[in-house]
């Protein structure tokens, strides 16, 4: 069955990397996946959005319509991207960075960035914490699969911390 996700935030938060890892995990489980992205000219700050479609069938039109899950890591992203959410879908928000919840029925608030800072000392790991949350909430890929995909993507000397980040996110919901 087709599942559509949108990961949004600001440049530098790593939402594009998180989306790529998720798509890689889905592919390694034998599913079809496409990942696309859009971002502003800023390398840091500015709007950043990445979309992933996962399906057993072939995927043609590459962009997400009516996402089943939206992750928003900033207030701006939350306000902008929840509108076309599937009414039965889920909006995942960074508890501290999105103080005002949009008017949507199914919201999960997780202190993603705060967990990364408090438990791992760096906001840098927020995207992997978020990935842990997403995997738990969406159940689109196996936790063991996502662990392998993260390990393949991140610099070798950061694997251990990234595994911790993933686990923290996974356990937070």
């Amino acid at each position, binding site marked *: 069955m087709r599942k559509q996700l949108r990961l949004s935030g600001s440049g530098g938060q790593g939402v594009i990397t998180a989306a790529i890892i998720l798509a890689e995990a889905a592919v390694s489980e*034998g*599913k079809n996946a496409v990942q696309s*992205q*859009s971002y502003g000219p800023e390398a840091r700050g500015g709007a950043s959005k990445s979309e992933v479609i996962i399906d057993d069938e072939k995927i*043609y*039109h590459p962009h997400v319509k009516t996402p089943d899950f939206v992750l928003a890591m900033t207030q701006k992203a939350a306000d902008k991207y929840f509108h076309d959410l599937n009414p039965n879908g889920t909006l995942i928000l960074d508890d501290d960075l999105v103080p005002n919840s949009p008017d949507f029925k199914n919201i999960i608030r997780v202190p993603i960035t705060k967990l990364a800072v408090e438990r791992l000392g760096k906001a840098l790991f927020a995207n992997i914490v978020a990935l842990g949350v997403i995997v738990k909430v969406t159940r689109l890929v196996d936790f063991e699969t996502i662990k392998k995909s993260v390990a393949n993507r991140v610099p070798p000397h950061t694997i251990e911390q990234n595994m911790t980040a993933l686990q923290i996110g996974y356990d937070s919901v």
Partner: protein
Amino acid sequence: MSARLMQGNEAIAEGALKAGVRFFGGYPITPSTEIAESLAKMLPKVGGTFVQMEDEIASMGVILGASLAGKKVLTASSGPGISLKQELIGYAAAAEIPAVIVNVQRVGPSTGQPTAPSQGDVMQARWGTHGDHSIIVLSPWSVKEAFEIAVKAVNYAERFRTPVILLTDEIVGHLRENVELPTDIEVYPRRIPKKTRAEGYQPFTPDEDLVPNVANFGEGYKIHVTGLIHDETGFPSGSPKVTREQIKRMHDKISSADDEIIEVHQEFMDDADFAVISFGGTARTAYEAVLNARKRGIKVGFVRLITIFPFADKIIGKISKNLRGILVAELNFGQIVYEVERAANCPVKLCAKYDMTIFEPEEIEKSIDELVAEVK
């Protein structure tokens, strides 16, 4: 080999490498840069050379020099960079130097909308350089096909000794999807002289397929290469006859192989009253629109131009005889639609978009409905 997630731009780099490209010269520009970045990493691993040049003009110059010295070559750019390359794309056509130029299209004119997708360089790909020349332009719709077309582009460049434009767009260039890359790849080798200098070798004497077997530099042939109109010796000639014959042969060498070069992907055409024609990343959305329209009972077929130029005149002419109308969906103000109009024997309607966003399937579907209503 199992499937893996790969980006369109990376697939182009991989395909080029598999086809034997061993030299890349380029200049960074979004959304093409991943091709340069991939090859900067991969080329030295196989003994190849990557060089970042001072601008796009130099990037073309450096690959043409490398090609003449015997290497298979590639460059990649977008928007303004492709405009700068045009001068030496013409040089490659005139001097018959194999080279592949990748254009990952973005919104123009000028700096336009960097990183946003567009298909606005279709006619530039055909006519961007000055003067009468022939050229091959190919466009992929998926990451896997980006790989395959990169191989094909390199092969055509070598076989016809011509510049080949790999015309992709931000949609496919930046898209990541699961691919299983083919391992069995046919590679066209560099053409080599069939005669020695003593036997009267002339570098620009055409072979049976009208393509000359130009020697690489450093092999003792002491050839002369110029962008001036030249005769079979390679030296400039002021003769009207030579000028006419050279320009004609450069067209004929490609047009005589049209049937082989021109590739068109067709589906649902057996019962079709209508067809949607598209190419590149837009074709993915057009395909979904066609599927949806068919579910609603509209007999519409799907036609995708893989080879953009030489244009599929004959194929469009033939299929349009059985059609009541054609919809051309392209992510620009209207370019390939004029080629389709010229070739088609039925009404042609344009579905254009030029606002930084890609088509939604509904938009193309709506145009299909309008076409159906208009021709009734």
